[in-house]
């Protein structure tokens, strides 16, 4: 490697870092100027390309964000002038921009300005607009708010780059055709739209969280991207308890990241995890966010409730110290708020821990014929666990084997097969002894 090449590498990595940090603000500001998120992104990309051409020779500017913004603004004026329709509006915008150009843009003051925060929030709501499919919302959010490149998103979601590219192009076209305004929804609409934003962030988080140790680094990094987005959103709408609830949930789940699989990637159940490996910083952040979520008036939302359950685990110094009765009470509230067979199944597990396997299995039997659980491997897995504790080893082995056959996750399947084998052994011992 020549010296010149390595210097270029250094600059390119610096540009990558600047881009990930600055592009959401840049695109948000440009969307305000152009009222077109697609055009704003193209302009931001142009500015990025200019940086890639010029910075290796001229060095990285002292305030790179301001440089990118100034460059993109120049291009915005050109683009609006060139615009095929050349409506008067475009002219007006171009003139307005030109006047702004006379005073040198100062991103430092812009950053402090609440306006940038408002623009970012508007961009968040555009990216998660219900006119888009959930997949499109996720892709657009990662691209415009997470600063990820199309190939990075594709790698993270294990799909071809062209698929993500098309998804983003189509999403931008859909937004443009629907004339989605650059605004924060008001009134009753706000909560529904916010729920869609939270859903997208949590989807991204789970995609990263479910990645295993051997995966490409970019998949686990999605969890960090989601956490960042969540924290930024919490700063933008601090009065919304569910945003803090989601942040709390993500921080607390992320705190167990290092402890939840062994070296071979096999998942370790929460009660068997080495708690010394839990990240105390993330736990403290999670508990602080949960406190904020619970400090407001009104009942807790689904994210805050799930975070409260995660907090019960986080607070327990040992698995035996877990406050299962409290967890059951929170699941009761969650089941009332968002009734679902999955919540019921988790509640059954908690009831089993708090009040014994007989009480738990009774609840499992009550939901066993729910169609939503027909293909869900954790139903037989949970039932197998309870049967094992009740020393009904033959039945336990059958259930665990059934669960193993239902999951496609290889480490998890192996774990279930091991447990099925253990149950079979116990069954033989019992018959042998009897």
């Amino acid at each position, binding site marked *: 490697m020549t010296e010149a090449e390595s210097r270029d590498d250094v600059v390119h990595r610096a540009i990558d870092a600047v881009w990930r940090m600055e592009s959401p603000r840049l695109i948000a500001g440009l969307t305000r100027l152009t009222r077109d998120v697609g055009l704003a992104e193209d302009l931001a990309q142009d500015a990025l390309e200019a940086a890639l051409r010029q910075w290796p020779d001229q060095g990285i500017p002292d305030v790179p964000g301001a440089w990118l913004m100034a460059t993109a603004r120049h291009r915005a004026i050109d683009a609006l002038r060139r615009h095929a329709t050349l409506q008067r509006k475009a002219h007006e915008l171009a003139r307005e921009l030109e006047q702004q150009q006379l005073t040198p843009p100062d991103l430092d003051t812009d950053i402090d300005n609440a306006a940038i925060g408002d623009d970012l929030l508007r961009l968040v709501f555009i990216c998660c607009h219900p006119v888009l499919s959930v997949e499109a919302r996720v892709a657009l959010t990662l691209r415009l708010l997470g600063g990820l490149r199309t190939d990075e998103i594709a790698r993270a979601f294990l799909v071809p780059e062209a698929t993500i590219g098309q998804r983003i192009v189509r999403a931008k076209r859909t937004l443009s055709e629907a004339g989605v305004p650059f605004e924060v929804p008001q009134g009753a609409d706000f909560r529904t739209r916010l729920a869609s934003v939270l859903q997208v962030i949590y989807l991204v988080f789970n995609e990263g969280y479910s990645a295993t140790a051997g995966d490409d680094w970019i998949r686990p990094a999605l969890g960090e991207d989601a956490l960042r987005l969540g924290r930024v959103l919490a700063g933008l709408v601090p009065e919304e308890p569910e945003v803090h609830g989601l942040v709390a949930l993500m921080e607390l789940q992320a705190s167990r990241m290092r402890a939840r699989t062994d070296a071979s990637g096999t998942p370790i159940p929460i009660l068997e995890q080495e708690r010394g490996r839990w*990240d105390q910083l993330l736990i403290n952040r999670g508990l602080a966010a949960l406190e904020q979520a619970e400090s407001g008036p009104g009942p807790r939302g689904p994210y805050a409730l799930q975070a409260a359950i995660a907090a019960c685990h986080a607070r327990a110094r040992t698995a035996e110290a877990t406050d299962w009765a409290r967890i059951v009470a929170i699941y009761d509230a969650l089941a009332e708020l968002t009734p679902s067979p999955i919540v019921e199944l988790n509640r059954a597990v908690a009831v089993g821990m708090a009040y014994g396997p007989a009480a738990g299995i009774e609840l499992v039997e009550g939901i066993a014929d729910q169609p939503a659980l027909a293909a869900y491997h954790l139903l037989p897995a949970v039932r197998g666990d309870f049967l094992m504790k009740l020393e009904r080893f033959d039945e336990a082995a059958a259930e665990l084997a059934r669960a193993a056959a239902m999951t496609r996750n290889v480490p998890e399947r192996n774990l279930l097969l091991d447990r099925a084998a253990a149950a079979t052994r116990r069954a033989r011992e019992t018959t042998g002894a009897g």
Partner: protein
Amino acid sequence: MKYFMKTEADPSAAVTPPSPELMVEMGKFIEESFRNGSLIATGALDPRTTRIRSEGGKFTITDGPYTEAKEAVVGWAIIEAASKDEAIELSKRFWGLVGDGQGTIQRVYDPGEVPQG
């Protein structure tokens, strides 16, 4: 990834207290950084150190040595960044507010994290 950043005391420079404007700007920067998760902890170090040494079950405690020059308090921060490059960019923002000076940036490993290259 976590990084430890430290300013370096410059004994030759006059010790001037930060201006009220800088205090306000820095306060905003710190608040914003805590909120978006990039700042984990920050503070200042007294330049006077106490040394402890353990040898064969015996401890030796020494204060100092102190230099005669007025040493400035050293600032430090532990930050969270996606990469070293991002840590450098965050550090530039700090120095952009402070002005002239120098410091160090070091990767911090979490318990169980394996140091690489």
